[in-house]
């Protein structure tokens, strides 16, 4: 209330002062000029002229009073600012008079700027961000690739390290694994093991304390650890006295020697709370793991002037040399891979990010085309106004400035709205984003791209705003508008813009359509198992409390019994993993069928292996196709039974006589010897999606995790329970936690419906589809606005023509046809160009598509017709409006 009153007062006061000041200086100037004139008359009279002649001569001599006044007025220091304000006021008045134009331009700009900024902020982190390492472009990942895996082997690493030339430094990490902080308030952590020279090689300095000492990186050296910044903050309150404190990691007393910087990240982006020295036994690397050493991931810093290709070429002989230790059977499948760290990190995210960036650029193009089109339509309508102002003495400069101010104001409004929109969009993206996309969580609105978009908006607006002001008014522009519109300036430009917009929309929507279809295929594919009413329970156990396989077995079996006793639980199974997650596998040639020659080595690919309890098939509802399923007796019987998936059974026994056959497996100590354990096939189970959602089903076999005979097989903290229950997950989760706490109160328990774990696998395609769909929709809306705008403009221009035609006897249908023809022609040309381009380039999407051809005819047909229908409506609405013109009004209109 009082603030409104105050504002009002302020406004009045400033207005009064301003007018008063201006009035005063105007009056003074008038008086001064008047005095001059009178003096001149006096002088003439004194020279002997008559009164009339004196006055006439004086006025003649004086010249244009108004001009002088204007020129004098212009000398005021505030003059420029004042006219600027005047132009601004004029522009604002113009916008208010034409709200449809104003709102459309601002909305278009806002959508364009908002979408571009938000998306760029996301992909910038993936595609263009600088890595938090010193001279990150000199860092490479140096691995052997084997099938889908990439790693280095300890046995080779040291050989390479000692003989290589292209690298200034080589280092490695041994991966990240679950570990527990076993002090009071135990905490499940991720611990990474790194080489002693890891931090210096990457150029990372601890913010507190120091790197590992050489003696700490030796086997059986003192146990030390570096904290991640996050752990230091959340667990230790950023206490600087944390140095040299002893904590317990999985029961081992460990001394904290440093804290990593806040932006520290492992080169493979694993989540890491704590880093420990790898403490490798170098000599042992030629004996452990069949003599090839433990897996690790090697990185190196290129020497100055060495390119990645050179480095790879120089490493190739060393690689071939170390290949001798790889068994001959699989040697050919190993390849040396040297690539930049950035490529290594972003392998899967790259494609999606580029598609996203492309789509948002398409939206930006459409938005800019719209702005250009709207401005040029407006310019054509204002041609007369400009001509009038020019005739009244407005200079070219003044008109240009006016146009610039209008463009500036619109761009400013669009940019501000756009930034707000970008913030909202980014928020929405992050909310729906899967966890797997690197750095998405840290995406922030990027100031550079905000500036870029705003600049772009200004350029668009200025370019189209300024051109008509620069043009000399056409002769006749002052006269009544000419009949006919087809050849007005800008119409051709606008037509081509509409065609371009439609074409770009077609491309966008085709891509979105393909992704959507692919995503549907992914979601709706048969998994071969039931996922509803199944809860997965993971319990990362504290290794210190479990000293033997039996201790683990007791926990797992005790928990199994406890869970079974819960009301509402139908069945419980234990497995090392659950589909559709891939599990570890063996190679097909490691399978030996009794009474048959071994399969030639190096053929056959992967076979997935799962060790399960008998209820596994019951919980997941995997049907048995032949023979029988596992039963409880199999757990204790000494006979080793095996169930094959249909795919594996068909490959091994094409005649369908799998049940009852005996099989053995290769062992690797010594290499490829026959394991004496003989398995008997008791059944064939249906295939289950077992290697991620988007890949082909792999062959698989199941063995029983027996209760007593194989205590060693229980020694893991990562087995999963699958619990079938009709009760709601939240209710069950609490009951499950309570039961497990009774058995081991220190064990962290993680309960999740299986549907969620499955759906998480589809997170990335869902995200990509949602984003691309959003942009396609935005693009479509903008293109439709453009089409509508042009059609409405053209029909407004032709009002008089329509009036004449109707007066001469044309009926409404004729007019409608006349008007619609124009729009449909634009639409068809745009569609054809768009579809052709989309078909030509959709191949690029192939790696993102699942079970759908990049040229899926149905999708393209749907996209074509959808766009045709929407665009037709955008054409017909203004065309119909044109038919309602009253001929009398239309003819009088000018």
């Amino acid at each position, binding site marked *: 209330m009082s603030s409104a009153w105050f504002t009002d007062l302020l406004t009045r006061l400033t207005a009064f002062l301003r007018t008063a000041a201006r009035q005063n200086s105007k009056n*003074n*100037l008038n*008086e*001064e*000029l008047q*005095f*001059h004139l*009178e*003096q*001149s008359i*006096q*002088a003439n009279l004194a020279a002997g002229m008559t009164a009339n002649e004196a006055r006439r001569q004086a006025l003649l*001599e*004086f*010249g*244009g009073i108004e*001009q*002088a006044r204007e*020129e*004098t007025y*212009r*000398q*005021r*220091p505030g003059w420029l600012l004042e006219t600027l304000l005047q132009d601004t006021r004029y522009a604002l008045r113009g916008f208010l008079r034409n709200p449809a134009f104003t709102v459309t331009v601002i909305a278009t700009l806002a959508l364009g700027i908002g979408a571009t900024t938000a998306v760029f902020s996301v992909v910038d982190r993936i595609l263009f961000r600088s890595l938090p390492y010193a001279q990150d472009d000199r860092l490479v990942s140096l691995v052997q690739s084997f099938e889908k895996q990439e790693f280095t082997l300890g046995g080779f690493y040291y050989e390479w390290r000692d003989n290589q030339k292209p690298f200034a430094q080589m280092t490695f990490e041994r991966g990240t694994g679950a570990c527990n902080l076993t002090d009071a308030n135990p905490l499940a952590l991720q611990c990474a093991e790194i080489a002693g020279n890891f931090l210096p090689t990457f150029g990372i300095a601890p913010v507190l304390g120091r790197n590992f000492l050489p003696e700490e990186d030796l086997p059986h050296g003192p146990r030390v650890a570096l904290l991640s910044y996050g752990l230091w903050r959340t667990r230790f309150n950023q206490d600087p006295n944390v140095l040299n404190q002893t904590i317990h990691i999985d029961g081992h007393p460990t001394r904290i020697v440093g804290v990593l910087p806040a932006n520290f990240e492992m080169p493979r982006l694993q989540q890491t709370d704590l880093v420990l020295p790898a403490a490798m036994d170098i000599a042992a690397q030629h004996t452990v793991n069949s003599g090839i050493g433990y897996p690790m991931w090697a990185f190196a810093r290129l020497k100055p002037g060495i390119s990645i290709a050179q480095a790879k070429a120089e490493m190739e002989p060393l690689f071939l040399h170390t290949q001798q230790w790889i068994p001959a059977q699989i040697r050919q499948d190993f390849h040396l891979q040297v690539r930049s760290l950035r490529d290594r990190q972003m392998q899967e995210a790259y494609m999606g990010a580029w598609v996203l960036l492309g789509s948002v650029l398409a939206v930006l193009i459409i938005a800019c085309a719209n702005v250009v089109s709207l401005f040029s339509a407006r310019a054509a309508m204002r041609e007369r106004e400009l001509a009038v102002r020019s005739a009244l003495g407005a200079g070219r400069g003044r008109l240009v400035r006016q146009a610039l101010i209008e463009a500036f104001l619109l761009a400013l409004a669009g940019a501000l709205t756009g930034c707000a929109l970008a913030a909202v969009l980014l928020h929405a993206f992050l909310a729906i984003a899967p966890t797997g996309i690197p750095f998405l969580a840290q995406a922030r609105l990027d100031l550079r791209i905000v500036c870029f978009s705003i600049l772009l908006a200004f350029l668009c607006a200025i370019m189209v705003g300024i051109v008509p002001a620069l043009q000399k008014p056409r002769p006749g522009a002052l006269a009544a508008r000419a009949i006919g519109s087809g050849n007005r300036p800008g119409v051709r430009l606008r037509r081509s813009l509409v065609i371009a917009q439609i074409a770009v929309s077609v491309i966008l929507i085709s891509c979105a359509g393909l992704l959507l279809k692919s995503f549907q295929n992914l979601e709706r594919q048969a998994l071969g198992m039931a996922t509803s009413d199944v809860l997965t329970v993971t319990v990362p156990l504290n290794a210190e409390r479990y000293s033997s396989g039996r201790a683990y077995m007791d926990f797992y079996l005790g928990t199994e019994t406890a869970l079974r006793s819960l009301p509402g639980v139908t069945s419980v199974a234990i497995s090392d993993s659950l589909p559709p997650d891939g599990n570890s596998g063996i190679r097909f040639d490691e399978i030996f069928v009794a009474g048959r020659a071994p399969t030639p080595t190096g053929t056959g690919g992967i076979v997935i292996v799962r060790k399960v309890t008998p209820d596994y098939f019951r919980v997941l509802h995997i049907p048995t196709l032949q023979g029988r399923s596992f039963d409880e007796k199999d757990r204790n019987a000494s006979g080793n039974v095996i169930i094959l998936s249909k795919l594996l059974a068909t490959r091994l026994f094409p005649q369908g006589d799998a049940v009852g056959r005996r099989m053995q497996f290769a062992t690797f100590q010594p290499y490829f010897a026959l394991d004496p354990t003989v398995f008997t096939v008791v059944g064939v189970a249906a295939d289950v999606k077992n290697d991620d959602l988007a890949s082909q089903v792999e062959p698989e076999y199941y063995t029983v995790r027996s209760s007593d005979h194989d205590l060693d097989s229980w020694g893991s903290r990562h087995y999963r329970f699958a619990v079938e229950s009709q009760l709601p997950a939240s209710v069950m989760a609490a009951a499950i936690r309570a039961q497990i706490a009774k058995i081991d109160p220190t064990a962290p328990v993680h309960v999740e419906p299986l549907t969620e774990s499955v759906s998480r696998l589809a997170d990335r395609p869902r995200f990509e589809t949602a984003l691309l769909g959003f942009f396609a929709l935005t693009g479509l809306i903008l293109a439709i606005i453009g089409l509508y705008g042009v059609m409405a403009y053209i029909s407004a221009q032709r009002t008089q023509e329509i009036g004449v035609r109707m007066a001469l006897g044309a009926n409404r249908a004729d007019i409608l046809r006349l008007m619609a023809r124009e729009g449909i022609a634009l639409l068809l040309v745009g569609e054809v160009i768009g579809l052709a381009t989309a078909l030509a380039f959709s191949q690029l999407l192939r790696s993102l598509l699942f079970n759908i051809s990049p040229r899926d005819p149905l999708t393209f047909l749907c996209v074509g017709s959808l766009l045709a229908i929407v665009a037709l409506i955008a054409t017909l609405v203004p065309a119909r409006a044109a038919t309602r013109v009253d001929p009398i009004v239309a003819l009088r209109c000018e």
Partner: protein
Amino acid sequence: MPTTAESNVLLQGTLDLLILKTLAIEPMHGWGVAQRIQQISNEVLQIGQGSLYPALHRLEYRGWIRAEWASSENNRRAKFYSLTAAGRKQLKAELQSWDRISAAIALVLGRKAEVPA
């Protein structure tokens, strides 16, 4: 009758110098300034009001002259301009630069001119 072309012949910035010089003698109103310049230049330099008043106002905004309303010789209210301290300094600077330039131009044109000390 002096043509406007004749007054346009004045070099850019010269008008300012003439006004400053004229006002250095005594405070004067616009008409007076124009008359004085005309007289002293033997009717060669005629200053039209179309350029006189913008120049006067420009100089005023720059702070080289100041204006006061006072009674004129025939008891009419008129705006009298006088030189400020900054204006005096400016006049001095402009006179020097004028001397330099006119000497230079004279040299180029091959006329004998007194080179200023």
